[in-house]
């Protein structure tokens, strides 16, 4: 029971205890500041600014949380390899599936006409009085 009470003697803590912890409050206020940037950025109405402030900042915030709160940078390399592997699988999925969704045709295939016609109809839905949410699938 004694090793439960004193975590520094527990193998799950011994290696992390050797690292100097970051200033968590400083990281937190940085994250809050970045949140403010991601909310105000799109107010300028400039697409490039929106993309950078919303998604660029989101990626940086995720990096800060992973590095400083999850301590990925002080973790054994196995964990980094594990996480990178699943991210690569995710990107492979995206690269494989995105053309079917986003393109009209490829070198040996063409999207059926009805799919394109349906997308066009959705782009210009008929105005219906008093309807909140236009149907779109």
């Amino acid at each position, binding site marked *: 029971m004694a090793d439960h009470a004193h975590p520094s003697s527990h193998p799950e803590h011994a290696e992390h205890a050797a690292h100097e912890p970051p200033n968590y409050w400083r990281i937190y206020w940085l994250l809050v500041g970045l949140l403010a940037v991601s*909310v105000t950025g799109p107010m300028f109405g400039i697409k490039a600014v929106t993309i950078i402030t919303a998604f660029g900042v989101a990626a940086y915030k995720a990096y800060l*949380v992973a590095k400083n709160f999850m301590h990925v940078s002080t973790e054994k390399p196995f964990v980094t390899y594990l996480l990178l592997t699943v991210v690569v699988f995710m990107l492979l999925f995206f690269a494989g599936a995105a053309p079917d969704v986003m393109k009209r045709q490829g070198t040996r295939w063409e999207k059926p006409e009805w799919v394109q016609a349906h997308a066009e109809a959705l782009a210009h839905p008929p105005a219906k009085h008093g309807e909140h949410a236009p149907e779109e699938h």
Partner: protein
Amino acid sequence: MSAARPIATTRSATGVPTGRLAVWWVVASEIVIFGGLLGSYIMHRLAHDQWSVQSAHTNTWIGAFNTLVLLSSSLAAVLGHQAAERGDGPKAARQLYLTMLGGATFVVVKAFEWTHEIHAGFTITSSTFWSFYYTAAGLHALHVIAGVVIMGIVAADAKRNLELHRVELIGIYWHFVDIVWIFLFPLLYIAK
């Protein structure tokens, strides 16, 4: 008592303690789950400009408030981990209770938000955008609820200075849930 500890909790082929390794495997599998869902959303969103008509109805300020809540709860979780490393179980438990409060606040705000949206006619079957919205945000909310429940169990032990290493393990999971929301927020609330 410690002699009865199963061998699987003491050996480590990767250099990562077994409990923490298990949590990292959970996180890895969750990346695939949420990555697939968000990847599908992104490709559909890029292919359908008209989704902006639907996404214009989501409330950015509510999303931003919930982001702030989750970031704050993550801070509490990591401060709990710090307290656990110093062997201060009661303080670690207090920080975990604060984290749970953040999780509960997040879910309550989400419930009010969804109620408002459903009353306005935006349901999971209204359009593909709303299907993605409710599926992604709902799956994330389920993870928040699961995290709060597990954290309650860990905090109860930590309060008595037991199994303090688990404070870090639930923290890793909680930070991951926070990261998922960090990406969901711009995708569902800002890209309009």
